[in-house]
């Protein structure tokens, strides 16, 4: 059952030595995203029904963000044992932005500027950062290895025009490819990045 990470190829291998495809890994990240989204939505609902107060909501959302980003980044890097202090710093940079958004949302909630439905939907939307954390670390892992080229595969049925444009370029140097979350569709980007 033990899965191993092969740093020469930046791929996971099963106990039998079979490579696990990036698409299979991406499915794992997508499942993680769905689980976290459900949890965050539940926190939003708990806040709107009075089950928890704003402070508790913020504290629990912060924990969910840190855990989910750390998990997604670790999987993107080849497991938590591959994560360096610099990698954790990158995760922290991504979290800093999310915490700033959360502080902004919380201030709006305190002032009564956000409806119940908006609170629930906006809480659930923080789960999109899971994919950003994963791809941010995957790009670091790939550039640390032999990969120099990257291509963007559009997955969303309603993908943004910028994603379609970059997908149409095919293989381009990694440094020229905008990270997942940097284009028009922002954190809602459902693209897949492939490296070689």
């Amino acid at each position, binding site marked *: 059952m033990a899965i191993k990470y092969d740093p020469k190829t930046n791929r996971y291998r099963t106990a039998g030595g079979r490579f696990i495809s990036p698409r299979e890994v991406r499915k*794992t990240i997508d*499942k993680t995203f769905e689980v976290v989204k459900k949890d965050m939505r539940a926190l939003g609902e708990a806040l709107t029904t*009075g089950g928890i107060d704003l402070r508790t909501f913020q504290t629990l959302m912060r924990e969910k963000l840190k855990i989910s980003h750390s998990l997604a980044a*670790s999987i993107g890097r080849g497991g938590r044992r591959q994560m360096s202090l610099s990698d954790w710093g990158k995760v922290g940079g991504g979290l800093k932005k999310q915490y700033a958004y959360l502080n902004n949302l919380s201030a709006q909630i305190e002032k009564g*500027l956000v409806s119940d439905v908006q609170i629930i939907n906006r809480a659930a939307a923080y789960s999109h950062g899971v994919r950003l954390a994963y791809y941010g670390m995957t790009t670091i892992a790939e550039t640390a290895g032999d990969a120099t080229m990257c291509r963007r595969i559009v997955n969303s049925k309603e993908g943004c025009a910028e994603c379609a444009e970059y997908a149409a370029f095919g293989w381009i140097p990694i440094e020229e490819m905008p990270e997942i979350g940097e284009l028009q569709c922002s954190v809602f980007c459902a693209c897949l990045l492939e490296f070689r």
Partner: protein
Amino acid sequence: MNEKIDKKPRGKAIVIEADTEPPTAKGIKAMQDLVRRVGLGALGMLEAETYGD
């Protein structure tokens, strides 16, 4: 747009500070708990050893 649309008291907001520290043992346990809900393959990836070791 800035008009109050929700007057329910929710309590005071706090400011969440940035944090770049790696997860503590408690954080690692929380990651493992989360990943178990995703699937055994995900747990295997999180805990992967280096191939060839």
